[in-house]
């Protein structure tokens, strides 16, 4: 009786077993990478917008304040997308016949919205709230990246749950003085870039943002330019009851006991207390983001 299989088949048989194992592993790794890949998250992708609006030009170039357009970022969950009128404030005078602005003028004329493509798009079951973040020392750039360096807007981060938890589990590493919220160029303190902070007697009903003030220039020399927190100063920034009530007292810059910080870790933990940030157990509880 003859052999059914050729000599080589022994090798093949064992090889195929090994290969199967490898393929399974490879598949697993691929899927794991895929779920985090820009293909899924749209991270870093520049959407086809009706108007190629450049944050770089408007922020870095013209030095527009974030809130000039995103007006409600401090008072509402929703930062706000500027109405066409905001564009027309300037573009009624300048670039009045630029081709790329046609959609804007269209919108202004017809009363139809400019249909922007949503770049930072959370799932509908995730409830993100801008006001609390900016009021508690999370800067725009922390999530949105260096918008002032983005000719076309794209998502700097994945906005996936693991990314959110990353900070909710340890907010200290991203906290900054609320005076620096809109500072795109803000960098973590270091030996050569220290930060000085002081807490004035913080009292019930006065937003923590106001009882803390920080400066990047040594307050011991030259009177500190104390950075002010916009929301509090603006009268009627929020028309809601309870919120600050009548406009809160504008703190006077007294060179109080300033503390010097040379590392994000120190600063973070200081602000953690100063801003009364809830502990990670609270911040990672489901109802914080899902309702």
């Amino acid at each position, binding site marked *: *009786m003859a052999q*059914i299989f*050729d000599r080589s*088949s*022994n090798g093949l*048989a064992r090889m195929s077993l090994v290969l199967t194992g490898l393929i399974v592993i490879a598949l697993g790794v691929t899927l794991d990478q895929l779920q985090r890949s820009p293909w899924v998250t749209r991270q870093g992708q520049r959407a086809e917008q009706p108007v190629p609006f450049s944050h770089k030009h408007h922020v870095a170039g013209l030095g527009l304040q974030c809130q000039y357009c995103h007006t409600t970022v401090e008072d509402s969950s929703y930062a706000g997308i500027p109405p066409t009128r905001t564009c027309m404030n300037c573009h009624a005078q300048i670039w009045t016949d630029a081709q790329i602005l046609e959609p804007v003028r269209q919108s202004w004329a017809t009363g139809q919205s400019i249909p922007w493509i949503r770049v930072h798009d959370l799932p509908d079951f995730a409830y993100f709230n801008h006001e609390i973040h900016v009021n508690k020392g999370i800067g725009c750039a922390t999530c949105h990246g260096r918008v002032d360096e983005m000719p076309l807007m794209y998502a700097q981060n994945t906005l996936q749950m693991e990314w959110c938890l990353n900070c909710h589990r340890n907010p200290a590493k991203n906290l900054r003085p609320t005076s620096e919220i809109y500072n795109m160029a803000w960098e973590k303190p270091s030996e050569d870039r220290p930060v000085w902070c002081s807490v004035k007697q913080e009292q019930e009903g006065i937003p923590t943002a106001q009882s803390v003030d920080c400066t990047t220039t040594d307050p011991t020399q030259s009177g500190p330019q104390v950075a002010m927190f916009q929301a509090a100063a603006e009268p009627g920034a929020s028309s809601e009851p309870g919120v600050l009530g009548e406009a809160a007292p504008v703190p006077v810059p007294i060179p109080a006991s300033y503390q010097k910080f040379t590392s994000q870790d120190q600063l973070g933990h200081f602000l953690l207390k100063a801003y009364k940030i809830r502990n990670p157990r609270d911040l990672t509880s489901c109802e914080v983001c899902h309702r």
Partner: protein
Amino acid sequence: MPPREGIYGLLAEFDTPSDLVRAAQKSYQDGWRRLDCYTPYPVEEAAEAIGFHRNKVPLITLIGGLMGLTAMFLLETWISTLAYPINAAGRPTYSWPAFVVPAYEWTILWAGLSACYGMFALCGLPEPYHPLFNAPNFRTGATDDKFFLCLEALDPKFDLMETRAFLETLEPVSIVEVEY
């Protein structure tokens, strides 16, 4: 490895397990070590006869089982106490009694798999090609009702004529040379 040339060994065929066992005992006493018996069902006496007493399968199984146990229990503990500690039903995050069950199952799973794969690995299976299949009478009987004793060429005592003569003394039904 390059395919070897020449003779694999001499294959003696027997009708009854008893004959085979006796033949095997004789060969072993005669000093043969590179030899093997082939039977349609497990004949422990034959294995004993050619001096195959214990194997490593139990050890492999034990190791596998322990790995399964520790792997799952650690995973559970890490997940529930470190990765995302959550208050579920007011139970402690480290609810070890609950962790026992999956750990227990994985112990069995890994042990079982190691037992099976270990066994095949030790046997060098899969091995669809084997010189013995060249023997004309092997496949007709070895898995049916015939009993074979094979003295292999690799054994220092092996010499075609002498070995054949030696086998004759065991009163086999037949003797055939097996080519590689």
